[in-house]
């Protein structure tokens, strides 16, 4: 296998006295989609932010393309890594295209503004997520799902080596979840490298990439989704009963793996 694009080595992070995770090692390879899942509060979002440089590790290091992340400045970092945040608070009603153009900021001088070439890149990014028709709409008026795709387009406009997605489907309904995942899948097919956190283990089955199950304290189980998302591992990580099933899809195009939590409720054996 090639050298990993991102290497996380012995990473630790704590808020004051409270350690979130310790001794985390993770390799991410170019062109793969890695899904990080785990219970609330296990530190998966924190880990993602540390990989993205939004938070600084207390121990260990993150290297991207063999460069230590803490040694490069925010501009250089923003050309390598793009982050899609979970908790975006809309600000002013900027037109969608302006919001996507903000992805070009790491390529501008300190007092610069996007050129027509930058705007063309932004439009292309909007096209890729299928939102070009909304380019002149105020982004504050979009639905949650549409806004998420616009912000995804912004990460594409950054033309980074890797895109980090923090629960990209949080707060979205079924349809918008699938729409977002389809776009992410389409990007993956074009060779984008992505790391995604999710609260829904099922989503890992939808991608051909690897899954990483993060347990409280930060120990990771990494592997193919079918190896990581098992009754035993999930039950242990979440501390509840979890069943992983294989069901037949209605269109007969293969089986679909799903997992679901269970609890003490009368059910058929």
């Amino acid at each position, binding site marked *: 296998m090639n050298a990993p694009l991102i290497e996380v080595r012995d990473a630790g992070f704590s808020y004051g006295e409270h350690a979130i995770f310790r001794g985390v090692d993770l390799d991410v390879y170019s062109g793969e989609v890695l899904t990080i899942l785990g219970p609330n509060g296990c530190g998966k979002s924190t880990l993602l932010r540390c990989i*993205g*440089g*939004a938070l600084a590790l207390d121990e260990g290091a993150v290297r991207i393309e063999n460069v230590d992340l803490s040694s490069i*400045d*925010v*501009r250089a*970092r*923003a*050309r390598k*890594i*793009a*982050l899609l*945040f979970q908790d*975006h*608070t809309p*600000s*002013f*009603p*900027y*037109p969608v295209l*302006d919001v996507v153009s*903000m*992805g070009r*900021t*790491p390529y*501008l001088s*300190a*007092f*610069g*503004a*996007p050129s027509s070439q930058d705007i063309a890149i932004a439009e292309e990014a909007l096209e890729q997520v299928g939102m070009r028709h909304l380019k002149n709409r*105020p982004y*504050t008026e979009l639905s949650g799902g549409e806004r998420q795709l616009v912000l995804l387009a*912004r990460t594409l406009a*950054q033309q980074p080596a890797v895109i980090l997605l923090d629960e990209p489907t949080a707060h979205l309904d079924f349809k918008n979840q699938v729409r977002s995942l389809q776009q992410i899948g389409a990007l993956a097919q074009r060779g984008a490298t992505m790391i995604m956190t999710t609260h829904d283990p099922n989503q890992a089955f939808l991608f051909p990439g690897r899954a990483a199950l993060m347990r409280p304290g930060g120990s990771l189980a990494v592997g193919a989704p079918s190896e990581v998302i098992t009754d035993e591992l999930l039950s242990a990580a979440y501390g509840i009963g979890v069943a992983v099933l294989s069901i037949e899809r209605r269109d007969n195009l293969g089986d679909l793996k799903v997992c679901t939590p269970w609890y003490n409720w009368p059910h058929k054996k």
Partner: protein
Amino acid sequence: MIKPRTVALMILLPLATLYVSLFIGRFAVHPGEVAHILLGQFLPIPHDWPRSVETIVLQIRLPRAILAMFVGAGLAISGAAFQGMFRNPLVSTDILGVTAASGFGAAVALLLSKNAIALQVIAFAFGLAGVGLTYLLARVYRATPVLMLVLSGVVVAAFFSALLSGAKYVADPESKLPAITYWLLGSLNAASVDSLKMALPPIIAGSIGLLCMRWMINVLSMGDEEARSLGVRTEWLKGGIVVCTTLITAAAVSVCGIVGWVGLVIPHVGRMLVGPDHRALLPATLSVGATYLLCIDDIARTASASEIPLGILTAMIGAPFFAMLLRKTRGAWE
């Protein structure tokens, strides 16, 4: 993008208001005569007007009108930049305590019977010092979170307001106290070529600085963490915005006292005209702010036999206007 018609309006409106301001007043001058006097400065045309009229137009009204325009433009662009940086439509230029600190500096200068220029220098210095103090207070973990800036600004403003009250309390109620009170109400009647020389450089420098940062202000308004992930050095940018707005506001307050509401209301008018994009909004606020304060000052010096303090008029016109805006938009951004 912005229509050419809007751009033309933004350029012509302040100039037209400036021209009108030169011929209205207690001593009415014919518009044609104003045109002659202005052209006479550059063209060899016969000087067939009285010297006294030329003095009124060029020595009294012109400096005052220019000062009004620059102060209005400066306060408006500062307010717009702050509203973008703080992501809050209710933020104004005095949020970091510059106004209170400058006001106290001016009161001290008046207590010590300093001349006009010394007063401006002292008020300006106190304004800078006040914001400096706010910035230091807000600095935690090598960053200045926006919330910390706001809270520190409240603290510093309260502190300087208390000092100002103390200065008023010890001031001679026959002479010094009225002087301090009138100064705080704001007025442009001290405008002179000297005060222009004093106030214009910082206002111009600060405005150019903000104009240079206008795209980065868009990105910053997405929030600090997102802006950083987009490659913005947020601490430098916020520091730059604070320096520019403080230069402008301290200079404005030091020459004409406390002029409220311009920095709060004009950015909203600008957004109604050109939208929220700071690339268009900041230049638009320059134009609207200049026109607005010039109109207000024209009213201040013509509406009654004695001058009406500016602070009273900007609030009396600004507050109902803002109330109307709030009702119309129900508190939304646009």
